C-alpha cells in the first residue's frame, strides 16, 4: 500500500488514566477525506489530539508528514483584542503561509477584516478559525467538528474550500456529525472502543 500523508498503526490512545480507543489502524492519503463518526464521548477528539501530537499514543505508531499537518480544535485560537486581519496574519506568519487575502475572500470575511474579533458572531469567529487552515500551507488538515455554529451557507463555503483542498493534493481527517456533501471515507470509531477500560480501583464483582 502506498504510504499516505498519515499512517496509524495499531494505535491505542486514552484520556487521563483510562484507555478509550485501541488498535486503531488506518491511513489517509493525498486527496482523501476521512471522517470519524461516533456518538459523543466515543473518542473522536482524543484520537484527533493524539494524531495532532498533543498527546502521545499509549501504544502504536503514528507516521505523518512532518510540518505538514495543521490541527483545528473546538476552540478557534482567535484573540478577541486583535482584528480579523491581525489574527489571520499572525497564523500565516507562524506557518510561513501565503498572504491572507485569498483566505479571507474564500470564507467571506473580507468585509470584516478590520473588525475586532471580540465583535464577531460565533459563526464568523469559526470562519476565521477555518481560514487559518488555508494560510497554514499544510497538506493534512485535522479538524474537530469544523462546522459547529456555522449556518447552511457557511457550511457550503467550507465544503467548497475543503473540496478544492482535496483536489489540489491535500487531505483531511475530520470528526463531525454532519454531512459535508463530499465523497469521503467514514470510519466508525466505536469499532475501536477499548474492550477493557482501565481498572477503576473498585471491582463490583467482589461485592
Amino acid at each position, binding site marked *: 500500500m502506498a504510504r499516505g500523508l498519515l499512517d496509524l498503526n495499531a494505535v491505542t490512545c486514552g484520556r487521563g488514566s483510562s484507555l478509550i480507543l485501541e488498535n486503531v489502524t488506518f491511513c489517509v492519503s493525498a486527496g482523501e477525506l476521512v471522517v470519524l463518526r461516533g456518538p459523543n464521548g466515543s473518542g473522536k477528539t482524543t484520537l484527533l489530539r493524539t494524531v495532532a501530537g*498533543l498527546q*502521545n499514543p499509549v501504544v502504536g505508531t503514528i507516521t505523518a508528514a512532518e510540518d505538514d499537518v*495543521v*490541527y483545528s480544535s473546538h476552540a478557534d*485560537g482567535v*484573540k478577541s*483584542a486583535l482584528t480579523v486581519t491581525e489574527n489571520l496574519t499572525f497564523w500565516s*506568519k*507562524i*506557518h510561513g503561509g501565503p498572504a491572507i487575502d485569498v483566505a479571507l475572500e474564500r470564507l467571506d470575511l473580507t468585509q470584516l477584516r478590520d473588525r475586532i474579533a471580540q465583535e464577531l458572531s460565533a459563526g464568523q469567529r469559526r470562519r476565521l478559525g477555518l481560514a487559518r487552515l488555508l494560510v497554514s500551507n499544510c497538506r493534512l488538515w485535522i479538524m474537530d467538528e469544523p462546522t459547529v455554529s456555522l449556518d447552511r451557507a457557511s457550511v457550503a463555503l467550507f465544503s467548497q474550500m475543503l473540496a478544492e483542498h482535496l483536489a489540489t493534493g491535500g487531505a483531511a481527517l475530520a470528526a463531525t456529525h454532519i454531512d459535508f456533501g463530499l465523497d469521503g471515507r467514514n470510519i466508525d470509531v466505536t469499532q475501536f472502543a477499548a474492550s477493557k477500560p482501565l481498572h477503576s480501583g473498585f471491582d463490583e464483582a467482589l461485592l
Partner: protein
Amino acid sequence: MREIFLRDLKLAFRSGGGFGLALAFFLMVIFLLPLGIGPKIDLLAQVSPGILWVAALLACLLSLDRIFATDLEDGSLELLVTAPVPLEGVVAAKAAAHWCTTGLPLCLAGPALSFLVNMPSSGVGWLGLSLLAGTPALSVIGAFGAALTLGVKRGGLLLSLLVLPMYIPTLVLGAEVTRRGILGQGPETPLLLLAALTLLGVGLLPFAGAAVLRMSLR
C-alpha cells in the same frame, strides 16, 4: 518567534491586556510605604533598596498567570503547540514579551522614583543596573512557573508559592547590589552574580517550560 513576541506586546497594550498593572502596583507600594513608615528619613534611606526590590518583585508576580492562561482559554496555545514552531522558542518569546511589558517599565520607573523612598543618589544608578540585570530572571522563572500551574483552576496562589522561593536569590542579590552601591562597597560582585543567575535562567528555563507545557496539555 518574532511574531509571537510582537503579538504578545500588541495584546498587552490593547484593552484588558494588563500593561501598566505591574507599574501601577509598584507605584502604589512606593507611594504608600513612606507614609506607613512615617517621617524617619534615615530609616527610609536605609531600607530603600529592599523596598524597591520587593515592590518590583511583587509587581512582576502579579501578571505572571497571564503569560499562558489567556492562550489556553482561547485555544491558541494548543494550536501553537501543534504548529511548526519550536515550543522552547514560544516560551522564550512569551517571557521576553512579559519582561518588556513589566520588567522594562520597572527598570525605568525604579530609579526615576527612588527619591520617594529617600534613596541616596549614589545608589540610583546601581538600582537601575541591578533591575536591568535581575528582572529578566523574574520573567523567565515566572514563565516556567506559569507553565507548571497551567490548567489549575485559580492557580494564582499555587503559582506564587512555587515561584517566590525561586525569586529569592534574585531579590537578595539585587538589593545587595543597590545597598553596596549606596555605601560604595564594590557592588560589582553581586551584580555579576545577579547577571549570571539571569543568564542561567534565560538559557535553561525555556526548555524546562516547554517540557512542562507539553505535559500539562496532555
